[in-house]
């Protein structure tokens, strides 16, 4: 399964938040999307997953055009996501949180699936705990688990590493590789250069709504434009 995004643009009341964004993700690939704050990373994810309607451009999954489709349709087409600030439904237990994306399957099948995913991410013992009572790291894990409920073929993780302890970041990194080994494509959105550089094989850099550079972590690290964008000085 490949995701192909071409010339995606989003304009908020005259401000171009995203300008001609391109991204290609092949099956099982782990791609990083980085950029300074306000570069348009979250806008890009929102536009790709249907949360906001882009003004122009194309989003294709396996050559099927999906631009402008509803988030529900994007989900059915195999694209799931998490949020910059973990957005759990605090009025539900963890297992109730996990079953929502697959409610169409019926209660029993949904709970069965929730148990499998919970096992994969090591949160089985939290299943009956209220989401409101979870500590920060656990909320992140539950959110990633929830994104995996629909058996997506591509997941977009919006700053999953933010606020995690080094230990938790390690297990996140391992989880990402496991996903990628099971042929799930991952788009990792973060401004934490280290996490992205150490995990991803290809990286796209956004700045002020435009793609600034694209390439392997090493290429990116040595790209003078990227250094300028991040450090604010030119060589």
């Amino acid at each position, binding site marked *: 399964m490949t995701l192909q995004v071409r010339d995606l643009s989003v304009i*908020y*009341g005259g401000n171009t938040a995203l300008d001609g964004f391109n991204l290609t993700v092949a099956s099982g690939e782990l791609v990083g999307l980085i950029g300074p704050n306000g570069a348009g990373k979250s806008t890009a994810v*929102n536009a790709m*997953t249907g*949360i*906001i*309607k882009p003004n122009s451009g194309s989003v294709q999954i396996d050559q099927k055009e999906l631009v402008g489709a509803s*988030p*529900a349709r994007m*989900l*059915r087409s195999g694209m*799931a*996501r998490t*949020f910059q600030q973990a*957005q*759990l*439904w*605090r*009025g*539900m*237990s963890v297992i*109730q949180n996990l*079953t*929502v*994306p697959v*409610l*169409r399957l019926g*209660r029993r099948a949904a709970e069965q699936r929730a148990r499998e995913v919970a*096992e*994969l*991410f*090591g*949160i089985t*013992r*939290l299943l*009956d*705990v*209220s989401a*409101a*009572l*979870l*500590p920060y*790291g*656990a909320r992140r*894990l539950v959110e990633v688990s*929830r994104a995996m409920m*629909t058996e997506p073929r591509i997941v977009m993780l919006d700053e999953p590493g933010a606020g995690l302890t080094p*230990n*938790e970041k*390690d*297990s996140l990194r*391992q*989880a990402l590789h*496991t996903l990628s080994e099971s042929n799930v494509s991952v788009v990792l959105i973060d401004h934490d250069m280290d996490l992205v550089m150490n995990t991803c094989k290809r990286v796209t850099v956004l700045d002020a709504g435009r793609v600034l550079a694209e390439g392997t972590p090493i290429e990116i690290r040595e790209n003078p434009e990227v250094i300028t964008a991040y450090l604010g000085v030119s060589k």
Partner: protein
Amino acid sequence: MYAVQLIIDGIVIGALYAIVALGQVLIFRTTRVLNFAQGAIATISTFTAWLVMDGTGAMYWWLAFSLAIALGAIMGVLVGALLTFVMAKASVLEKSTACLGVFQLLGWGARVIFGDSPKRKIAPVEGNIVFGGLMINTNGLVIAAICAVAIVLVFLVISKTRMGLGMRALAQDEETARQYGVPARRLILTSWAISSAIGSAAGVLVGSMLQVDHSVMTTIMIMSFAALVLGGFTSSIGAVVGGVTLGVASSLVSGFLAPSYKNSIVFALILLFLTIRPDGLIGKKSIVVQESGPTPETLPSLPSGRNRLVLIGGGLLALAILVLPMFPLPFPISSFSVMIAMTIAVISLSVFMGYVGEISLGHGALVALGAYSAGVMMKVWPTVPYPVVLIVAAAVAGLAGAILGWATIRLAGLYLAVATLVLTFVVLEVVLQARDLTGGATGLYVPSPVLGVKVTGDVGKYYVAVGTLVAVIIIVQLVLRSRIGQRWVAVRDAPIAAMANGVAVRRARVSGFIFSSLIAGVAGAVFSFIVSHVGPTQYGLFFSIFLLLAVALGGAGSILGAFLGAAFISLLPVALNRTSGMTDGIMGLTLILVIAFLPGGVAGLVERIRTRSLLKRRVDTEQELSTTSTSSGSVIKK
């Protein structure tokens, strides 16, 4: 020429709608609260103006007018201070509800101070100007001129002064505005002062056209809320355009179409317009579902598994209800039947507010629809089986809920809330006009329900009501434990995350309102046979406020809380021996006190006590997790 005359009349009255709506926008933009107390504040100011003018001549009109404005501003600041300082922690929905409590309390106060009887009108000028076949009332000219001045002043303040700049900053983001040195609280109180002064001016102006009485502001308030639905709650221009448009539209409808159904037709036109243009008259196209901020911690969790406390409490309560008629009671058993019916009504609102997280301010209108459909049904077909009556009553209310919900549930929940408020008056109008069916002002006699045999005795009716309540509770529990309940809470707690996880946000919200409307219809049916009568004033605005009070007192979403709240609002009036004025005052005051000092109601209090033990569990969880997170990597690796 007739049409021009109608348009001119419409502009005068529309200008009044416009300035009141503009006042609401000022407060809403800075606080996200709708000031439902504005009508009562304006009524007191208007009566005060009448006192000043009484015995003196029209030359004192301007003095009376200025005094009324000043008094309105002072009362506005007081109400604003109550909300800002005493209720600092309450949510905006709770604050808006508290305004209804203030409305009721002040309304009671006005009756005590000024008496019940209407007073003569207080006009600055009399007579008409005839101009090329048009007749223009000079007083109308003065009204239009004053409104125009008020509108221009408000726009100048917003756009040209530092204060206006601060208000606009507040409207964007209070937190940021404060950090940049905007004196938030002072500006909020100022907007309350301006808004209430405008409202009081409108009150005196209405009093100059008709007469001064306790409902001097009712129509104006309702129409200005309708103007807000049309023009958007945050747009000053929208408020003015919406107000004038409504004034002209209702004048034209009443002149050309059907004067007796004027409000209903105008309301239907608004709904139609909103369906075609969901962003309102002025509103820009919205990009995203608006995040409504963090879920208040007082909102309930979905039931899962068994809660021992609830089971024991519920069991005891059920037993008490079943054996109640066998004991000597302080009140007649029919009062307790009313309490049971009231519990169903409270549940219908409580589930909606608790689990869908939205608010309906005119829920009584849906109860009224249920009561009237049941009443009419039983009148024309006296042997109709009771379950059929319930189904029809639920269906009629549910249909109204579906139409209203689909047209108005959008970004913020207030559109729906206000639309239900307007519905209250539309239902009243229809009931009064469709005399053949509804019995008009005298109402309708409702025969006894038929369950195999006719159930005529009071005790028999009590058990029919209890049986209905049990069925309602079972259905509510089933729905909350189903996928529907999960979708409601997902949308309530984090709408964007719900959207991203495949939940249709709008459909979930609308389904919540339809479900609530169905139960409200059932409550209406039960009321109708218990009281043996349906009348046009039983389920008006005060009834809706009582329901809100019951939900606030018991705690949104809590069934046991619904019993408690229903008992309070239905038995207190009986205990006070129906000195109705007194009851209104007490209810209004209780609503304010509960919101200020008992967030989440009694159920919230119980929950907080329970959470102390849960917090201990949270620490355990944290320890547990620190072990799992180190091991999760290996689990995944395996």
